[in-house]
């Protein structure tokens, strides 16, 4: 027993004092935070315009009713009279103006006389702000148009027609990407420490020094796995924290009205549980890859296809649009089950049976992996391959 702890302590000492390794442990969490915050602000911009941006609108023959239309879009704007059409269009191309709106003369009078005046909206779809302004103003104009001079009425009432609750909306957005992103970051976190752990000993020849000690092969394997797991778990917890902190930003704040309150304590605990077993699994898989390789370089080469498989399996979990798989046996498949559980947890369709199957299945696979690793340590063919 004490030799397991000795080996574990030495590995931990190495991981936690090596700046390069420390960085790669913290980085996934930071990246999750940055990425999700970034995605959050993109969502917000698409749905409700950039709040910090003042859209420049050039108009011609602006009717009074248009002020009300603009108000409905909720954007900040500055509106000015266009000198002429050519100038306004050139301004859009140059980015000085985001949108140019040309109304027929006496627009409001015409609508009240049941004539059909026209309004032309010019924009630059290659410019994000211009595109957003167009999307928002166009739909606001359309909405008003059907109310004023209806051909037929579509969703013309005052109530909200999207019956999805705010909670469901937020769940859908998160669950679609979360499993994929989380799996990749957890895997890369594990990769940073695990790939070189055993292959490095082979490369440096220290494996022989270790193997001529009377320590049992299985104890060496367990000591290494424990150290790697603890290290990867620290990385995983940092990823988890990064994720939790970025969620409110991802939800787009008040603008979309999507809130975090949908997720309770059990969601977070469940997520942490899935993260822990997944990290253990990744650690064991990568340690085996490392043990089978002759050098650190070879180990990282072998780790790439494994990563691609993990990515592919996580992508599969995005296919059914965030709704978790309902076949219990699907939760026996490693990686897929973790991704599905995260989907389930965040789409508010958490199923405790599936969660338990996932946890148990992962623990069984980890156990098998540790057993295999001990066997590998015993195999002279693999430990001293030419």
């Amino acid at each position: 027993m004490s030799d397991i702890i000795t080996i574990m302590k030495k590995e931990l000492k190495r991981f936690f004092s090596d700046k390069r390794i420390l960085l790669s442990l913290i980085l996934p969490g930071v990246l999750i935070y940055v990425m999700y915050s970034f995605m959050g602000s993109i969502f917000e911009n698409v749905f409700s315009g950039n709040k910090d941006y003042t859209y420049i609108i050039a108009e011609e023959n602006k009717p009074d009713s248009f002020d009300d239309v603009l108000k409905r879009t909720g954007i900040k704007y500055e509106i000015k009279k266009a000198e002429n059409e050519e100038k306004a269009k050139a301004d859009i191309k140059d980015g000085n103006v985001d949108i140019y709106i040309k109304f027929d003369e006496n627009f409001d009078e015409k609508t009240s006389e049941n004539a059909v005046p026209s309004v032309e909206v010019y924009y630059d779809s290659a410019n994000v702000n211009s595109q957003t302004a167009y999307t928002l103003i166009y739909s606001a104009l359309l909405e008003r148009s059907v109310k004023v001079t209806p051909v037929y009425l579509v969703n013309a009432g005052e109530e909200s027609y999207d019956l999805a609750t705010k909670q469901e909306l937020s769940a859908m957005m998160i669950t679609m990407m979360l499993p994929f992103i989380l799996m990749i970051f957890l895997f890369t976190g594990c990769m940073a420490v695990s790939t070189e752990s055993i292959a490095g000993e082979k490369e440096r020849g220290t494996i022989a020094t270790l193997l001529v000690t009377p320590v049992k092969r299985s104890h060496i394997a367990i000591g290494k796995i424990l150290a790697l797991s603890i290290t990867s778990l620290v990385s995983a917890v940092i990823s988890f924290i990064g994720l939790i902190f970025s969620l409110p930003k991802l939800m787009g704040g008040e603008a979309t009205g999507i809130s975090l309150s949908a997720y309770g304590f059990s969601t977070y605990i469940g997520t942490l549980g899935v993260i822990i077993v997944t990290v253990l699994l990744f650690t064991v898989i990568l340690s085996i890859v490392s043990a089978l390789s002759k050098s650190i370089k070879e180990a990282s080469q072998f780790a790439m296809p494994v990563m691609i498989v993990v990515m592919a399996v996580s992508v599969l979990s995005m296919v059914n649009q965030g709704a978790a798989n309902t076949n219990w046996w699907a939760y026996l498949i490693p990686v897929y089950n973790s991704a599905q559980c995260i989907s389930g947890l965040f789409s508010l369709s958490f199923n405790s049976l599936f969660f338990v199957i996932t946890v148990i299945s992962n623990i069984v696979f980890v156990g098998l992996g540790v057993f295999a690793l001990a066997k590998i340590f015993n195999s002279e063919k693999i430990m001293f391959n030419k």
Partner: protein
Amino acid sequence: MEEILKVEGLKKTFKLSRKQQKTEKLADRTKVAVNGISFSAYKGEIFGLLGPNGAGKTTTLRIISTLIKPDDGDAFIDGVSVVKNPDKARAKLGFLTSELKLEDFFTPDYLYDYFSSLHGVEKSVAAERKAKLFDRFGITEFAHVKIGDLSTGMKQKISLVISIVHDPDFIIFDEPTNGLDVITAKTVTDFLIELKNLGKTIIISTHIFSLVEKICDRVGVIINGKMVLIGKLKELTELKPLEDVFFDLYLKESGENV
């Protein structure tokens, strides 16, 4: 003379990958690395295994140090079989190769304690032994410097000390001076002579004649996995230099022109 090591009829065949088969230019996908090697080493001597590349030196030494299992035969360290009782044999031997590169990141002090603990040396004994060894080989003042910041010579000394933390009477050293410059090589050979003076039995492998002539008491010549000659260095080199003795044997064994 007290027999510390007894090697009896060791045989080892490796299965080769296709790639290895190609590079070794073999018709068969197996390679007989060690083909019935027997010899003994006696207390307090330095025994040299001399042979060209691929002769089977490393394989022989790995079998003796319990790292790999022979297909046939056995080796006994102080009467303990390395095949039947590897754990007990490990306590009696120190194994080292010049290929060993300690992790840059740790200090000699830490690594010593680490391997001491893995060898099950009692803490107080370990501390006393560490102080003595570090002192004797001039490591004390570098005890808390990271390996990565030390000279190659110092690294080699530390590797040596670390492989004898359990104070074995029998030390196996594969290619002790391989890839070292003359100064570092001298540090290592001085170290080995020092250990010999402490009454340790040492077995080294090498393809360098001068090293054998300088430090070995007895020498065994391995060619193509077979021990073709064994004897006291003094007696073997009575008539002609070791190099000539070797080449005569080599021509006879391989039938090749050199």
